[in-house]
């Protein structure tokens, strides 16, 4: 049995976090800065928090969000989202000074190997969310970063300037060609890997995109870590509601793996990636 995911202790807490700021940073994409010293200090790139939208039965469950960025001196952390349903719609109505009940940090984030010298960070749509924090960590380790960002259209793309200012070499792809390459962001990855295989790939985005990234990297024999976007119940392993299918099969592996505890970051080839 291949072990999938290393369940590192995350020592999460439940905190009432004041909203510092909310901005619509791209069409329908919101960035919220919350204040909490503990989460800001403890969170690793790729980890998430589970946020209670309000103290009511509707919406019932918490909503999981990757931590986008932190400011440890100010004791803040940022979350990025787009309106997907009633919960995320309500979140956009929050104002500075409002509070959210936040549980975290949770999950296994990206692991950065000491031998990595070059990284490709590839994000599709809201998969951009965990990447600023990751890029900061890669920068600290003096790893050269190529960032590839995909969105449906120009006005839904966020992060290009942020990533450039952080020292990454950024290229973009949009479905309609309104910015950068017209087509899938995974095509940019495929092209890059033709002449550059001494890299580690870090990806986040919708399942079909992750499936493609995984396939490309396995074929090119390039190590890849993928952060999955999936529905969760509790976020810390008690509901068993977020199973992923191990690539070798559930029976062969002995169990489903849980996106919250074993992930949300998996290595390419560990779990089946489909909707």
């Amino acid at each position, binding site marked *: 049995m291949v072990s999938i995911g290393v369940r590192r202790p995350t020592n999460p807490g439940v905190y009432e976090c004041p909203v510092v700021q909310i901005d619509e940073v791209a069409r329908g994409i919101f960035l919220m800065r919350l204040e909490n010293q503990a989460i800001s200090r403890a969170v690793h790139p790729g980890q998430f928090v589970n946020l209670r939208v309000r103290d009511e039965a509707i919406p019932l469950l918490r909503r999981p969000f990757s931590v986008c960025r932190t400011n440890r001196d100010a004791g803040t952390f940022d979350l990025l989202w787009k309106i997907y349903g009633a919960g995320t719609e309500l979140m956009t109505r929050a104002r500075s000074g409002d509070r959210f009940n936040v549980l975290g940090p949770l999950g296994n984030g990206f692991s950065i190997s000491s031998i990595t010298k070059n990284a490709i960070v590839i994000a599709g749509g809201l998969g951009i969310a965990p990447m600023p924090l990751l890029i900061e960590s890669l920068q600290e380790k003096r790893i050269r970063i190529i960032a590839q960002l995909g969105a449906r259209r120009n006005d839904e793309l966020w992060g290009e300037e942020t990533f450039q200012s952080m020292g990454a070499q950024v290229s973009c792809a949009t479905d309609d060609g309104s910015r950068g390459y017209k087509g899938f962001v995974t095509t940019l990855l495929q092209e890059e890997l033709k002449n550059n295989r001494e890299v580690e790939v870090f990806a986040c985005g919708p399942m079909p995109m992750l499936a493609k990234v995984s396939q490309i990297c396995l074929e090119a024999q390039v190590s890849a870590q993928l952060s999955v976007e999936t529905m969760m119940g*509790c976020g810390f392993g008690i509901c068993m509601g977020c199973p992923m299918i191990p690539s070798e099969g559930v029976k062969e592996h002995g169990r489903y793996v849980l996106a919250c505890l074993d992930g949300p970051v998996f290595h390419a080839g560990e779990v089946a990636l489909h909707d």
Partner: protein
Amino acid sequence: MIDLRVKIGEVVFPTPVFVASGTFGYGEEASAIADLSKLGAIITKSISPEARVGNPPPRLFETTAGLLNSIGLQNVGVEAFIKEKLPFLRNTGVPVIVNVVGKIGDDFVRVVERLENENGIAGYELNLSCPNVSEGGLEFSQTAKAAFALTSEIRRRTKRLLVPKLTPNVTNVAEIAKAVESAGADAISLINTITGMAIDIETWKPRINTIIGGYSGPAIKPVALAKVYQAAGAVKIPIVGIGGIASWQDAVEFFLVGAHAVQIGTANFINPNTAIEIADGLANYLMKHNLSKPNDLIGKMKKS
């Protein structure tokens, strides 16, 4: 001074607010966030003779103030439970009730017989809401006959607290409650989840893999309250009320219709401290009403 202790069978529980099976894992998962030593009891994930991998995704879907699930009784099996999970649970210092499940009566017998050799178990909750293969797929607690037979089988094998957990998916829950009481149950817990469905109108597919799932959460509380009321009126043994409890106010309603204790389920997913906060809220409520113990509330509903 408020004394929240309740005695059910021979077991004294520190508070009457427990965490329900399948909503608290094996305890350990929540221990970083909740102080388990303040719980009234921990009811474990359902334990079967062999490990079960559970159902494929999607397993959860949120509805209006409710939750549909089809986890499929994923569990590590009785041997791994004893080796890997029980030592932690034992150390919490609160009563541990093992929820037992099986496809045929013999599965329940195997699990209980194996656990009888182990210390640190206060009792067994029988998950009678699993389809009974030998009865053509009807849940064990859908017929009084099957519920009676299975409860009797287990009663013969243990002196520990025995609590059959009943399904709400029946016409007459009082009849099933009477059957398990006459089979020697020490208490009855109810309700398990209600059967429910949801459909994606864009893809025309069901929202969860098994099509029909178990419906829980605040939305089902009125249904649960009615079933608890009916069961409490039919039997003399204590009732443990379950179903949509998310606040101490919800819990008080269950005591008033006849529950001796309550279990917190879906609310644990949002806040694993819910049971502890409800126990505190209950103590405050009793104090405000010049009452000294939960017993002063049980079945005290006034009929207009």
